[in-house]
């Protein structure tokens, strides 16, 4: 086993370890690059006020993206997250007007999210539908409709103290919503890297048929990720409703696209089985920073979508190039050692 052992020992050598670390950190490096560029372009960018804004603005996408990540890890897709957010916010507002208790409202919003998620997961699994695209597209439509119907199409003003705090409170310049994101991220990191259930999520994404054959409860795992994604939408609804002190059937429009984009831009695989919470967070921050930057730099409204498109591709592309350069570097490095 000398060759292998040797190779392993070489893996310990510093430049190589650094290179491997850099690969893992790839998207983070690009994110840092983005930050550097932005702070050079706009003096307002690196102010605490603005950093707080970026975090608060990215919080909703980040939470949704973490939920979406779990779904995508199992080779799925959840198109309903934006509508679920809207429905949860409206439910919260209606509950608040009936029973003005903070915890009850929070529970109602979380439960709404999980209920939509359960419909997605169970509809997909028990209905033996060919792809989750179908059921989550249906709930994308139906949850929004329900939110409109429940609210009579009207935004509902007023949210309990605790929801407002989660949405717009802050410790210094650090918004509370950033802590909330951190807590959600931590919990999901724990799930995906340390817990049996998380291992099963990766197994189902890597080989669904194989997972079935190894007696992993595939159906329950699949249902669970949609419920968790719905829960994430409920949490995101709390943040949004708190930021705007309202529940509205128009909240979360196109959030499904944002959340999927965050996961994919952040470097997780759209095809399942590969990726982690870090990818979702990085992707959400990238999107948040790009949008924030457009506004800070007063980019013309017509040109904004063009610039956003170009920057997204450039960010991902620079990570691709970085990866290639690095693997070339590793070969040279290893050949020398």
């Amino acid at each position, binding site marked *: *086993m000398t*060759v*292998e052992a040797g*190779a*392993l020992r070489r*893996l310990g050598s510093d430049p190589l370890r650094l290179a491997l670390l850099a690969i893992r950190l790839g998207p983070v490096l690009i994110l840092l690059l983005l930050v550097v560029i932005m702070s050079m372009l706009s003096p307002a960018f690196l102010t605490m006020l603005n950093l707080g804004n970026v975090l608060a603005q990215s919080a909703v996408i980040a939470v949704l993206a973490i939920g979406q990540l779990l779904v995508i890890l199992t080779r799925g897709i959840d198109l309903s997250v934006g509508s679920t957010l809207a429905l949860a916010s409206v439910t919260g507002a209606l509950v608040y007007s009936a029973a003005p208790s903070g915890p009850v409202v929070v529970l109602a919003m979380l439960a709404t999210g999980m209920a939509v998620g359960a419909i997605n997961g169970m509809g997909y699994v028990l209905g033996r539908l060919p792809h989750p695209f179908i059921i989550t597209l249906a709930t994308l439509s139906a949850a929004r409709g329900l939110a409109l119907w429940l609210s009579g199409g009207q935004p509902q003003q007023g949210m309990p103290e605790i929801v407002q705090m989660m949405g717009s409170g802050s410790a210094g310049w650090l918004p509370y919503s950033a802590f909330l994101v951190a807590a959600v991220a931590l919990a999901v990191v724990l799930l995906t890297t*340390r*817990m*049996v*259930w998380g*291992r*099963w999520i*990766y*197994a189902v*994404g*890597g*080989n669904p*048929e*194989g*997972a*079935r*054959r*190894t*007696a*992993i*409860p595939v159906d329950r795992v699949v249902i669970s990720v949609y419920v968790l994604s719905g829960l994430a939408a409920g949490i995101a609804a709390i943040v949004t409703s708190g930021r705007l002190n309202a529940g509205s059937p128009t909240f979360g429009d196109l959030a499904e696209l944002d959340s999927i984009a965050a996961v994919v831009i952040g470097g997780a695989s759209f095809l399942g*089985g*590969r990726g982690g919470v870090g990818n979702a967070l990085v992707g959400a921050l990238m999107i948040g920073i790009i949008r924030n930057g457009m506004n800070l730099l007063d980019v013309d409204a017509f040109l904004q979508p063009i610039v956003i498109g170009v920057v997204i591709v450039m960010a991902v592309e620079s990570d691709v190039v970085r990866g290639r350069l690095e693997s070339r570097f590793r070969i040279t490095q290893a050949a020398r050692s």
Partner: protein
Amino acid sequence: MTPALAVRGATKRFGAVLALDGVDLVVFPGEVLALLGDNGAGKSTLIKCISGVHRLDAGSIEMGGAAVTTGSPAAARALGIETVYQDLALFDNLDPAANFYAGREIAGPRWLPRGLRLLRRRDMSRVTGELLTRLQVGIADPHAAVGLMSGGQRQAIAVARAAAFASKVVILDEPTAALGLRESRRVLDLILRLREEGHAVIVVSHAMDHVIEIADRAAVLRRGRKVGEMRPTPDNRQAIVSLIVGGDS
């Protein structure tokens, strides 16, 4: 003695193809049964029906004398059937240890529900490494995803997994097809050890030498039907080959 596993009148059809046609099969504890047949004879299909991957269109399965339903792989596994599939059913995105323990991870604490327990990753890596070393498969980077590994390395992982968790019946579909000389030898030894420990073993193989060496009995399928059973001995070799190939060729 009651057979560990008995299959009666197994019939399975895929669209227009009759893959199994009234197959009977028994295997006893401490016995190695070789399942032989040409390509497309129905061997893998029979195995998948026993392991709960496919459902039989007709026929029944008994274990220890009692009728059972292996409606899903999970049910079959719970009944004590451990299988290595021909296509291996590995998780290409996970490392060998994760593949090894997929579905029965070492985790704790015990008072938590299964899914919420924390993985004991170091324990799993260690045991996996030891077992693979026993099979003499050198795996350069034990933390690489198995999707990147060589054909033989992959097969060794799948075989070691089934052997490690063997309970009543162990089924191996062409377990040495991709293995080198030394690794094949180890797998044959493994099978013999399983027999000694009282497991019932079903092995699919095209390698007559291996079959003659390890099998107590050979059942031959041809186009979905069982056409005969025989004790595989060097003397019987030609007879078995004729059974496999059939009179009409």
